[in-house]
């Protein structure tokens, strides 16, 4: 029983199931396979960003610039497509990944080489990236009729019953599962966050690992930037405003410890799905919009309360032992 309670993924899975049952009791069509696929597709951008954020948080950092990175990359892709509709999709995808990665690297370098606290760095770059969108676009929107059909069609093209957007989320989640479990870098993320001093003694460069985490997070934000703009067929300065907090919330609900070094990819995935289901269900279950924000907020607080509780009980056990020996 205790081990089950301690398995955060099990609790979260149960919570998601309970949530689905609750929603189905008020709006049965919500749990139809077609609709669940739609909800998953809608949650895909959140999953992608939350995965990147996860590795950043694992290394005791935080990346608040992801939404601004997404918006800037999205705007650049949209403007490029509007100006040169002939540029092939592959080139736009590479551009999105590269641009996002470079913006992530800027965060990473400042944390690594200049030793500035990550929250300060990314708060700064968040504003800079948003500001750059103004500079680039002059504040103008890029609208649906200015984008090519290939550009807006790519994320919604169907492949084996699911849109490409959903497949990308599945693919990236798979890569993260493997990468975190099987590569030296994946393990280094945990080592750096769990105990930075010990990590140094095992030959892991803490700064470099954090740099890699920021680069990964930025790269995914860039990719999502293109997907976002193509999905909603509009690019403007404020797209995904405040989305960084939702991304951090998905990680926290998924059990990624803000103190670093603890959490799983499965947890993040479930955390993002939980938020995605709540967001998609609220419009159809006929709850007053005045309550919707309160409900989303409560879910986050409850999740964090679970986190701190499990952390505290661990501490108590150690303390008891110490008392016994003394």
């Amino acid at each position, binding site marked *: 029983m205790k081990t089950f309670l301690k398995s955060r993924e099990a609790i979260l899975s149960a919570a998601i199931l309970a949530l689905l049952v609750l929603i189905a009791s008020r709006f049965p069509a919500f749990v139809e396979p077609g609709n669940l696929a739609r909800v998953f597709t809608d949650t895909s951008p959140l999953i992608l960003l939350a995965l990147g954020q996860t590795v950043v948080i694992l290394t005791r950092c935080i990346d608040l610039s992801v939404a601004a990175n997404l918006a800037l990359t999205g705007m650049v892709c949209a403007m490029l497509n509007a100006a040169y509709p002939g540029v092939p999709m592959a080139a736009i995808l590479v551009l999105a990944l590269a641009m996002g990665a470079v913006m992530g690297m800027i965060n990473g370098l400042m944390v690594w080489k200049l030793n500035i606290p990550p929250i300060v760095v990314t708060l700064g770059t968040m504003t800079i990236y*948003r500001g750059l969108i103004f500079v680039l676009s002059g504040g*103008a929107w890029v*609208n*649906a*009729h200015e984008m090519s059909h290939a550009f807006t069609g790519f994320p919604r093209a169907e492949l084996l019953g699911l849109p490409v957007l959903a497949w990308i989320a599945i693919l990236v989640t798979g890569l993260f599962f493997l990468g975190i479990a099987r590569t030296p870098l994946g393990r280094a993320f945990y080592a750096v966050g769990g105990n930075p001093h010990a990590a140094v003694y095992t030959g892991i460069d803490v700064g470099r690992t954090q740099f890699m985490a920021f680069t990964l997070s930025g790269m995914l934000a860039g990719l999502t930037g293109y997907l976002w703009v193509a999905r909603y*067929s*509009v690019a403007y300065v404020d797209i995904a405003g405040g989305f960084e907090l939702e991304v951090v919330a998905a990680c926290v609900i998924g059990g990624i410890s803000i103190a670093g070094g603890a959490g799983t990819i499965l947890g993040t995935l479930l955390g993002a799905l939980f938020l995605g289901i709540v967001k*998609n269900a609220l419009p*159809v279950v006929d709850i007053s919009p005045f309550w919707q924000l309160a409900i989303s907020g409560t879910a986050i607080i409850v999740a964090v309360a679970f986190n701190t509780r499990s952390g505290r009980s661990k501490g108590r056990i150690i303390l008891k032992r110490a008392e016994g020996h003394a």
Partner: protein
Amino acid sequence: MGITRRLFGGTALAAMMLAGGAAQAQDNVRIALVVKALGIGFFEAAAKGAEEAAAELGNVEVIYTGPTDTTAEGQIEVINALIAQNVDAIAVSANDTDALVPALKKAMQRGITVISWDSGVAPEGRQLHLNPSSNPLIGNMIIKLAADNLPEGGEVAVLSATTTSTNQNTWIDEMNKVMGNYPGIKVVGTVYGDDLADKSYREAQGLMQTYPDLDAIIAPTSVGIVAAARAVEDAGKVGQVNVTGLGLPSEMAGAIESGASKSFAIWNPIDLGYSATYLAYELATGAAEAAPGAEIPMGRMGKLTLDDNNEGAMADPFIYDASNIDEFKSIF
């Protein structure tokens, strides 16, 4: 002409240096157009109109400014900076009805003319308010747009901005008042997309799921109407669900082309910026005074008649559809 004016400007500047404040009256009338946030197509178009008015009036310099995000705090900073620059008039589209009042009062104490336009300020914080149209007219227009395409009647739903948006709530109230004129049209629900593309898209999808027989979505907000049109296209319900409401031609061109939206309306932001500049000029130069019942000229837009709250309506909203969208989509 340009050289003459520059020479004259130079003379005025020299005179001002010599005579100090006495020469200020001969200087250009500096009118600051403060918008909700920079980078919104609607306000960029209003700035164009302001420039048009400035060119007609001759001795007017328009300062187009605003915060980078739609906050009252940002606007207060901008207004304080304008007071420091000692502009002649401030014409503001407010992010908050009350929060700007102290800053604007300070401006008026320094002799700066203050008017609000588009989104208003409480009466004590401005001399007059220019409404783009009257609220009853807009309320009637949004339901009329939906009803005109539903001769047999049908179900419509409203996708608004945030639950606290003053503009949207007023229009929806006015719409509900005239529902009796549209028998057969039933408003089945009102949802809020918070003026975010992703949330509005999700709410529109939710509406189509909750009400399978839905005939139209009315979105009296520019972000919402675009997102709703996209959601209708993605759900394959073009021709079945008509998206209408208030939007900008450049942003809605794709939706008109795809058929997701048959028509929508908006006042002309160019006219709005033009009128606001004219009104600010008239008040700043003392040619007119803002008082209940006053009629203040605003160039080609005719006259603004003020009511008991010193408010006036500019004109009726203008309908855009497939016949005129190509003409307007490149303008704003």
